[in-house]
């Protein structure tokens, strides 16, 4: 990477962890996109030898059905990454809209939405997601839906708090006095003020969503068997404890991608944090 370009980034984005995070995330993104080109074998093809250790021909070994682990890990990126991004984007949308309404309109709207959010938050996330996924039936779509249902309340909480803080701002009142509709007021005056912090929360949540998704698949509530999905591959590994490579490689995949997303989220948070805003020049940011 060009060094001069690097220097122009905000300090939070220049830290080693951020660079490692973005590098790893980028690698996984490319791996997922180029899986058909990179994978040495068909991820679903079964061939002998079964349970072969890592070595020539099968770098990461093969599983109990003789499928190439490397190919399956690469193809797994095509499941985990887009689905966790989707689920987080949906949570941001659902939570942001509900929380925004709650904060802006207050009273009964607020009461109803936030009590439902509290209800969801009262349960441990993983357990509630398990229950919902189990009730809906095991499939990737249902796993995504289950995670969405448990993941939106924090977004709603944050959005509500931000909107509540903004609502009494005089520029919002000025807009209303000028005849802004509630919709226009939300769009023009409120949304730009809440987007930054919500995006940070989103970035920090991608790792969680990935973990939760593979967790559900690990327990058999997500991806159905033939699909190459990291969580279910780790589950396969627990059945063949002598063959460590079956579980370890997809496990490492989950570990690296979750860490990478968390590093990126931290960087985004620090870059947008008002405490460090001075160093990155808010005036210029707004002007840009």
């Amino acid at each position: 990477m060009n060094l001069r370009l690097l220097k122009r980034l905000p300090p939070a984005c220049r830290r080693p962890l951020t660079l490692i995070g973005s590098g790893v995330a980028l690698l996984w993104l490319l791996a997922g996109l180029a899986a058909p080109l990179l994978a040495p074998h068909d991820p679903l093809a079964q061939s002998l030898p079964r349970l072969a250790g890592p070595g020539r021909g099968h770098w990461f070994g093969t599983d109990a059905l003789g499928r190439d682990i490397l190919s399956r890990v690469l193809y797994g990126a095509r499941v985990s990454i887009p689905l966790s991004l989707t689920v987080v984007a949906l949570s941001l949308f659902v939570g942001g809209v509900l929380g925004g309404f709650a904060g802006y309109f207050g009273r009964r709207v607020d009461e109803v939405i936030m009590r439902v959010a509290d209800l969801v938050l009262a349960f441990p996330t993983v357990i509630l997601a398990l229950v919902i996924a189990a009730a809906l039936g095991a499939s990737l779509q249902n796993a995504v839906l289950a995670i969405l249902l448990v993941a939106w309340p924090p977004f709603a909480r944050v959005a509500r708090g931000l909107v509540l803080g903004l609502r009494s701002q005089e520029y919002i009142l000025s807009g209303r006095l000028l005849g802004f509709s509630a919709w226009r007021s939300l769009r023009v005056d409120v949304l730009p003020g809440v987007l930054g912090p919500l995006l940070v929360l989103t970035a920090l949540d991608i790792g969680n969503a990935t973990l939760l998704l593979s967790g559900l698949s690990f327990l058999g509530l997500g991806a159905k068997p033939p699909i190459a999905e990291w969580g279910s591959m780790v589950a396969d590994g627990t059945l063949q404890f002598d063959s460590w490579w079956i579980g370890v490689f997809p496990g490492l995949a989950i570990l690296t991608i979750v860490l990478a997303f968390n590093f990126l989220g931290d960087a985004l948070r620090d870059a947008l944090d008002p405490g460090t805003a001075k160093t990155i020049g808010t005036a210029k940011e707004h002007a840009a």
Partner: protein
Amino acid sequence: MMARQNRLLSVSDLVVQHRRAGRRPVRAVAGVSLDLGAGEVLGLVGESGCGKSSLARAVCGLTAPTGGEILFDGRPMRPLGVRRRAPALTGVQMVFQDPYGSLNPRRRVSAQIADGIRAGAERGERGATKLTPGALLVRVGLPEDLADRYPQELSGGQRQRVAIARAVAARPRLLVGDEPISALDASAQAQVARMMRALAVESGAGLLFISHDLSVVRLIADRIAVMYLGRIVETGPTAEVWENPRHPYTRALLAAIPHPDGAGRLPVELPGDASDAAAPPSGCRFHPRCPLAFEGCDREEPQLAADGVACRLYSS
């Protein structure tokens, strides 16, 4: 006095209460009546906490009154709710105290002034569509090229002028200034106040100018109303109130203005603080601090008489 229906703004027996969780409600405005004609400037003065802002916010419909009536142009002022404000009511515009809070930090000055122009056009004001943000900036004494800037690139005084330009862009029939100059440098205060008067009077709008600074209000107001703890204690033409203040509170306010006459006199300060608005004193609200209080002031509450003063010194 003109018939009430013909007045641009007519407030009668207005009561504004602020509810607080677990505590007794504060009666910030406790029965205020005033009116204002087109092209007239009314200066409302009083100490901080006397209910001036609550009155201003109620007049603009930002807070719902607890009692009484506010008529704008003969129509009741509907408090702002979830629904968008009716175009007729965008004829009331407000300039807030804090120029750092009243402009959206993320939008260009031109876009925010354009909102005002649109509001005027939607009300069907003639000539509203011909206005441009640049021309309005010039009218408030700012260079035209400020239109492309963001609020945080401007000084407090410039921002307040932008806020005024936005309010004026809506072609208001009633302009309400809630302490619009108190956040400004002393050098800019009189200038901005005079400008607000000129802009309002030029367009035939009424101006309700709220301030705690009598010396500035005197420069621009046709009439003055003095407020103490939620009630108007004295009102009258500016010159009359200035030359011949009658209510002891008005006298105290005037005496507190320093006079640069070389005599080196320090202004006389009113002893004590205003009483708690949540538990106003019995009788005349001013009696605990009044140097002229006499027998009965702590029992009988004086009403604002036709001669414009609410004090028992003059009632009998």
